[in-house]
């Protein structure tokens, strides 16, 4: 694990906060607790895999509200909701908005730790994908406009000859551009290039 994971806790009840932090520590997890959503939002978050154990009922900005605000930020975070009672409509809303898990108080330690483990893994995966995407993106940005056009037509399955006809250039020129694209994108084969195009983040993906 290149970077140490961290679990954030937001709960207005100090004893619950302390107890949850103690439980996570006993399970060997690093954690940081906040008494309110606003304080969590103000705090600077560390890098590395992370997740949020969030009490649904909070003074001020409540749990669902915080979830909505976090959905808009650059660095998303998996959320495990804790609630006093299983309110089905609220649960459904939370899950629909992307909650990782919804647990009721008093929570069983195994369930909570399992949910945290899952959330951290999912976050790690998300981070990896984000890095890959950023890498592809920077390679793509290096391509000239003509090379991007060629790449787009090639990944859509056209032969060099067809690409040449499409762009009104010679087949030879197409071959040069194509070799340049393969090199810049560090694609070993056409198949790899196609996969890269598929994984490009929305907006950067050739259409």
């Amino acid at each position, binding site marked *: 694990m290149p970077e140490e994971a961290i679990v954030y806790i937001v709960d207005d009840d100090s004893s*619950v906060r302390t107890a*949850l932090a103690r439980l996570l520590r006993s399970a060997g997890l690093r954690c940081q607790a906040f008494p309110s959503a606003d304080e969590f939002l103000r705090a600077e978050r560390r890098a590395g895999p992370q997740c949020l154990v969030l009490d649904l009922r909070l003074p001020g900005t409540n749990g669902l509200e915080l979830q909505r605000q976090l959905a808009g930020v650059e660095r998303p975070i998996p959320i495990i909701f804790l609630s006093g*009672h299983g309110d089905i409509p609220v649960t459904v809303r939370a899950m629909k908005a992307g909650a990782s898990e919804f647990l009721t108080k008093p929570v069983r330690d195994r369930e909570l730790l399992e949910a945290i483990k899952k959330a951290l893994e999912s976050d790690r995966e998300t981070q990896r994908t984000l890095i890959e995407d950023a890498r592809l993106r920077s390679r793509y940005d290096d391509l000239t406009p003509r090379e991007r056009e060629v790449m787009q037509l090639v990944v859509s399955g056209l032969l060099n000859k067809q690409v040449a006809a499409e762009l009104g250039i010679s087949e030879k020129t197409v071959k040069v551009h194509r070799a340049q694209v393969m090199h810049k994108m560090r694609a070993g084969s056409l198949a790899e290039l196609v996969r890269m195009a598929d994984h490009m983040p929305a907006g950067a993906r050739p259409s």
Partner: protein
Amino acid sequence: MSDVAVRLGYTSADRSNESFRQTFGLAAIVALAIYLSSQAGFLLRLPQSGIGFVWPPNAVLFVAFLLVPQSWAVVLGAALVGHVVAHTQDGLPVAIQALSFFGNATQAWLAAWLIQRLSGSRLYLADLRTTGIFLGAAVAASSVASLVPATGYVWLGWAADFSAAWWARVLANVITMVILPPVLLLAPSALAELRQKPRRAVEFAAILAGLFLIHAIAFGWTPAAVAGRPALLYAPLPLLLWAAVRFGPFGLAAALTTVAIQWLPNARSSAGVFAGDSPAAAVVSLQAFLFVAGVPLMILAGLAQDRKRSEAALRQSEARKRAILTAIPDLMFLQSADGVYLDYHAKDPTDLLLPAHEFLGKRTEDVLPPDLAARFARAFAHATDDEPSVVRYAIPIRGEMRSYEARIARCDGDHRLTIVQDITERTRAEERLRDSERRYVLAATAARVGVWEWDVASNKIYVDPAIHADLGLRPGQVGPTLDDWLELVHAADRARIRSTLQSGSDGHATAFEYDCRVVHHDGGIRWFHVRGAVVPQDGIGPVRVSGTATDITGRKQTEEALHRAQFELARTGRAAALGELAATIAHEVDQPLCAIVANANACLRWLDDTDGGVQDIREALADVVADANRASEVVRRTRELFRHGPVETTSLEVNSVVREVLALNRARLERGQVEVMADMSDDPLLVQGNRVQLQQVVFNLVTNAVDAMRGMDRVARLEIRTWRERTSIRLSISDTGAGFSPKDAARMFDSFFTTKPDGLGMGLALTRSIVQQHRGKLWAVPRAGGGSVFHVALPMAETNIA
């Protein structure tokens, strides 16, 4: 005579005495009259003849026979005595006396018999018929009765020629009958009439004076001028005619008698008109004149009587008609067939539409508007003698529209009699009645109110067609008795209605109203609001109960829907509030539990891994204790929540609280078909307390009672009593519900204890809590006969004790 005696009330002894005296008197009168009249007859005898000019005794005898026919023997005997005396004095032979008496008696009797037989009544000479009978009888009797004497005279040599003797006798006797009996018979009534009417008397006197004047002219003043002119014998004829026409048989007979008496001496002396005739011939001429003029004039006199009688009858009928016309208020018109007004009768001349003096001679179309005149013309054409045409119309009269009914009948051949009746008031009354009936029907229909009436004695009930219609029934399909209709009433309501009606018919209630369910023809249930009032009759008591029934199914359904909605709302609201409360409690308890669990788990891990320090474990366990205490505190506070804080109290009147709650619950009680009996203390029952909370107590107990009675078979009856004891105010609410078992009795006031499927089990617990807060007591006992009685005792307010 005897019937007169009876009428006067004589005793039988008196009567025989009286009757003897009367018979004797009659005989004496008749004998005397015959004697005297015979003497008169001798004086009037023809010269050189045994036969008289007239023979008055015959007239006397005839009148006697006619007036007292039952005493004919007395009359006959007395007449014989008078006859014999007179004739013996005269010196006539006995045979002649006998013959003449036989002839005279026969003639008088026969004439009287014929007249009585044919006239059949005591009306003599009253009209043409009786006059004709009189004359016929006179002629016939004279003719027949003269046969024997005439034959005898000839046989005895007293007369030479039979036919001359017969003729002389017949003539004399007929004249006798024509001139004398009418005077004798009719004098009483005729003289009475003349006394009453002086003008008639003067007229009659003028006739007699005229006769004297003519006689004086004919024989006194100018004997030379009249001598030998027999036609002048007829000079009195106009006056005789006058007498016959104006004064009937009496007047004629009197005039003829006058003429006979005046003229006979002249005839016997052959003077004046008789100059040149032998006295015998002159007398016969006079006889002939009297006969020829007398007989037809007598017939004319009878005719005049007829005329007079019919004129009198006509006058009478006219007078009667006039009286009828005066009495009736209707307008009457007599018109020709083409509508010309010939006569009218109008109480108020302004009804004629034209000035009265212009009216006659106008036509229908000159008086009435053209269209109405045309209707009258048609009615005129259709009117017959026995089937009147009727025209109803309205015209403006004296500034207002008035209605009339004209009935037109044909009369007098082709005339039309129209009787016009003012029917304005009648028409208006009819219209008012129709209007009011229409309004009633309209109102009843609009309000869906039906009327019913129950006759207590016959148990029959009249039910309006509107009610039939509401129940989908044809009129007459159900009934006619009250029980037939009660069969239609929902079984649960039937007994209640029967007892309500019973209390009306017993006189215990004068008016009532209730709601009940009735089974519609299609099997559905309709709700009716029924009102009734008892119609009493003095001395008999209630005889009829009548009222209305209104279909309120729609209203009931709406009410029930509303109630269900309210109930649902309340229940939902209660559930939501409770849910909220529960959520709060749960959250409050969950927090420390969550912390405890988390802390405990952390400790367990540390103990397992020996990673954590003792310090960590100590801290965690300290927190566990703290959180456990906290959870316990939450629970304590929750209980505190149900405990009531201090509330504001005032001095309250318990009866008013009960009434407020009953008023609020009226709909619920009605819906539950609950009979409420409130027996409230008349004294004010003051307690110190909180109005809303005490209302809550009564409300909860009433609700509890109504709920307990729901679905029970027996009549749901809620009894509320309030009274005061020495130091407390008491309230009891009893129901006829399911009651409670001894097992339940111990727990029924506990929270969350309920026997209701949808109950929370809080009602009685809260109620008791409120009562206790008011330093009072709440308890329950089983009700005798099923159900429960809840008792509340509250301490009396200070003012109440004082």
